[in-house]
Structure formats: structure tokens, C-alpha cells
């Protein structure tokens, strides 16, 4: 395991019953790098992120963060490492019983013990960083459009200025223009923080924009990894089929014949 990696995975496997989702993932992400993992729906992209975060325990394999093995951590060590992470969930996962500013200030208040007054200022600043005015902070998440919810979720993910940020399908369900706004915000936030980022997506425009390096997840393995510039001449038929969105090719969707 290379000591320079921010995140290093070796032979990570995860099954649900008889369903093998991850079947031996090896992945290195360097400090300050933005890694994008692409793959079809249900290919295990979210499961991969949740294993790294410790929200799920992998069946086998090693996951290290800053050279520290995190598989099998107890609650306290887990909490310490969790402090390094920020996560933007697929559906936003905003707390619907709390106001927008309370959502953004949640990490600073609840786990870093910041006073509410000060955390509110932090929340307003972070909302500003994603292009939302302070008046939005008084609303509840259910009063916001999908694109605004994504931005609030982004503000919450960066509120504690994490070293590592994960983005789970940040542009899914948004119109192309809002998707590009989110892409720009992600690029800006990650570079402002100097953070390491891992994003998962099946939106190639997003992958090209936010990624330095791309890996493709297929049948539980990363079948190709390389710099973004190489994605168009990867020499891998699976990658080619995916990035061009063709129904014909080596990847067979499991759909019944009509």
C-alpha cells in the first residue's frame, strides 16, 4: 500500500446474500486528486463509497485513509476518521425537520461543539459559497427545488472543511444547466479546500469536468483506470460502450426479451 495515497483500497469485496456487489476493488487516490468512478446503475458505486466511509463493513479487503487501516475500527476511531470526510448523498439526505441553515450548521454544532451563533455565520458563508442567499437558510428543505437541495447538501458537506469529499451522483436528476452549475461548484469547492475528492456518476459530462482520473466499475471490479484525457482512447470496449451510451456492446443489460 503506497504511503502517499490519501485513500487506498486493496481487494475489497462486499456481497448482499448471494448477490456479489464488489468483487475485489483496488483503488488509490492521491492527496488533492479528484477521482471519478463511473458505472451503470446498480453496479455498486454507492456501496463502494459507503464501505470507505465505514457506513458498511466490507466482507474482505483493506481500506486505509492516510495510511491508517480503517476496517474493523471501533466507534471512537471511526468518529475520528469520519471527521476528515464530507459526503454529498445521492438524494441530498437533508434533515427535513431542520431549517436549511441548521442542516448546514449541523456538523459544526453537533460534533464540533461550535456555538449556534457562530455556526449560523458559518452556515451563511457556506450557503453563499454555493450561490444561495442567507434568506434561503430560514426555509425547510421541502420548500426547495431539487437543484437548490443539492446545493444545500453541498454546503453541508463542505461546512466542516473536510480533507476528503465524496459526491454520490451529484448531477443525477438535474437539468443540464443546473448540472453544470453543480459541476462548477464542486470543482471550486474542492480546489478552495484543497481537498481530495471521490465522485461517482454515470454522467460523462460531469465526470470529464470534475475528474482528474476516471475509473470504471463493472461487475464488481474497476476494469479500467486512467487520466481523464485517456478516456476517449482507453482501448477498453466496455469503457467505449459506456461513454458513448450504446445499447450494443460487451455490457449486456439484464432486461427480458420482449
Amino acid at each position, binding site marked *: 500500500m503506497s504511503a502517499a495515497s490519501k485513500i487506498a483500497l486493496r481487494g475489497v469485496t462486499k456481497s448482499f446474500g448471494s448477490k456479489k456487489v464488489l468483487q475485489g476493488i483496488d483503488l488509490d487516490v492521491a492527496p488533492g486528486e479528484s477521482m471519478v468512478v463511473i458505472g451503470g446503475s446498480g453496479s455498486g458505486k454507492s456501496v463502494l463509497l459507503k464501505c470507505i466511509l465505514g457506513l458498511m463493513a466490507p466482507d474482505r479487503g483493506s481500506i486505509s485513509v492516510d495510511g491508517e487501516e480503517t476496517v474493523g475500527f471501533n466507534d471512537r476511531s471511526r468518529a475520528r476518521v*469520519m471527521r476528515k470526510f464530507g459526503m454529498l*448523498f445521492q438524494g441530498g439526505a437533508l434533515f427535513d425537520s431542520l431549517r436549511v441553515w441548521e442542516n448546514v450548521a449541523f456538523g459544526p454544532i453537533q460534533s464540533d461543539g461550535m456555538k449556534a451563533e457562530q455556526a449560523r455565520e458559518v452556515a451563511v458563508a457556506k450557503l453563499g459559497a454555493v450561490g444561495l442567499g442567507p434568506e434561503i437558510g430560514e426555509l425547510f428543505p421541502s420548500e426547495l427545488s431539487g437543484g437548490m437541495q443539492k446545493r444545500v447538501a453541498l454546503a453541508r458537506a463542505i461546512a466542516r472543511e473536510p480533507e476528503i469529499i465524496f459526491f454520490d451522483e451529484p448531477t443525477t436528476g438535474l437539468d443540464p444547466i443546473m448540472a453544470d452549475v453543480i459541476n462548477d461548484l464542486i470543482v471550486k469547492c474542492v480546489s478552495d479546500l484543497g481537498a481530495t475528492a471521490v465522485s461517482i456518476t454515470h454522467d460523462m459530462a460531469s465526470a470529464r469536468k470534475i475528474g482528474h482520473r476516471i475509473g470504471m466499475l463493472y461487475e464488481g471490479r474497476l476494469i479500467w483506470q486512467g487520466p481523464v484525457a485517456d478516456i476517449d482512447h482507453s482501448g477498453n470496449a466496455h469503457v467505449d460502450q459506456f461513454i458513448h451510451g450504446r445499447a450494443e456492446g460487451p455490457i449486456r443489460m439484464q432486461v427480458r426479451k420482449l
Partner: protein
Amino acid sequence: MNIPLLTVLGRMSLAFLEATGAVTAFAFHAVRQAVQPPYYRRQIISQMLEIGYYSLPVVGLTAIFTGMVLALQSYTGFARFSAESAIPNVVVVSLTRELGPVLASLMVAGRIGAAIAAEIGTMRVTEQIDALTTLSTDPFKYLIAPRLIAGIVTLPILVLVADIIGILGGFLVGVYKLDFNDTAYLRNTLDFLEFQDVFSGLVKAAVFGFLITLMGCYHGYTSKGGAQGVGMATTNAVVSASILIFTFNYFITEAFFAR
């Protein structure tokens, strides 16, 4: 023909044991997290309001009609033996020992058990619980412990209120419908009332409060698969809490009153 039946019974017993084990493990973990800091005081207070204060109307209505019907029914029964004077006694003992805690808890189970399961279940399927964890907040401490604590603390208070309102209901029927002398009715009630009756009812209430909130939290926390999963969690929370209330009611009664 015997073998399939045995197989089915065997499978059901195994599934039952497995579920019991899972719930017990969940309960132990929840209690351990509840007694260790940090305590989320605001969460605890808002849950106490939700579970205790806002259940008062439902519990009060249940109690007053239960007390009234108890007086009426025991009158029609006891008049045959000219034992009408035992009515205040019957009302107060059955209310404080059994009907107060059991009926109030069943109403709260329907109201609160379902609400907790729906809320925590929705948080589970929309990844809000995972989000809590990534914000270094233990969902057991932030979501589950406040509800358990509120259940254990507020149910006895609710039941005490139910006892008083139920006795009042019996008194109203006794005095205005059955022509009891009001001071005699009250004196009878107080003479018969024993500390043990009320105390056993309050112990039951605390246990039921724990069971109701535990079932709501457990089914919500372990729910999966979207809206349908959350719906199932709500149903299961209410049904399992109700069954547990009846089961524990018997054993607590036995512990207090059986010789």
C-alpha cells in the same frame, strides 16, 4: 404430511428466535448509548412534548370513558348481588392496576409507535441516518436515546393523569347516574386505594413506554426499500408494541400480585 408441518413450525420458531435476538441486541445497544454522553437535551425535550403532552387529549378521552363504562357495567353486574357499594373499589382498582396503563399505552402505541417508525424509517431510506453518521453524530444517541428516555419518563405521567381522569369518569356516572352520595363515593375510592395499585400501574407504564418507543425505533431503523418498507415498519411497530404490552402486562402483574 407431518414433516412439512414440522418444517414450517421449525422455520417459524427459528425466525422468531432470530427476531428476538436482533431486537434484544438493538435494545442493549440503544440503552448503552442512552446512558453515555453526549446527551441531546433539545431532542429529549421535544420528544417528551411529542410523546407526553400531545398524547394528553387521546389518553384523557380514553380514560374518562373507560372510567364511566366501568362504573356502569359493574353497577349492572353488582346490583344482582346488592353489592353496589363495591363499585368505587372496582373502578379504582381496575383503573390503576390494569386499564389505565394498558389502554393509555395502547393508544400511545398507535399514535407514537407509528410516528416514530415512520419518521426514522423515512430517515433510513432517504439516507438521512447515514448523513448523521458522516456528520460524526451517533444516530443511536441523537435519534433513538431521546425517544426511549421520553417514553420511559412520560408514560407514567400520562398514566397517572389517566388514572385521575378515569376515576373522575367513574365518579360522574356513580353520582349523577347511579345516585351515589358524592362524599361516600369519594371516601370509598380513597379507602380502597392502595399505594401498590398505583405504583404497579406506573411501573407498567414505564416498561410500556420503553417497549413502544423501542419498537418504533427498531422497525424504523431497520426498514428498507422505500415507501413500502416504511409502511411495513409502521404497521410492525404498532402490532409488535401492542403484543409486547399485553405480554409484559401479564408478567408484571404476576410479579406484583401473585403469591
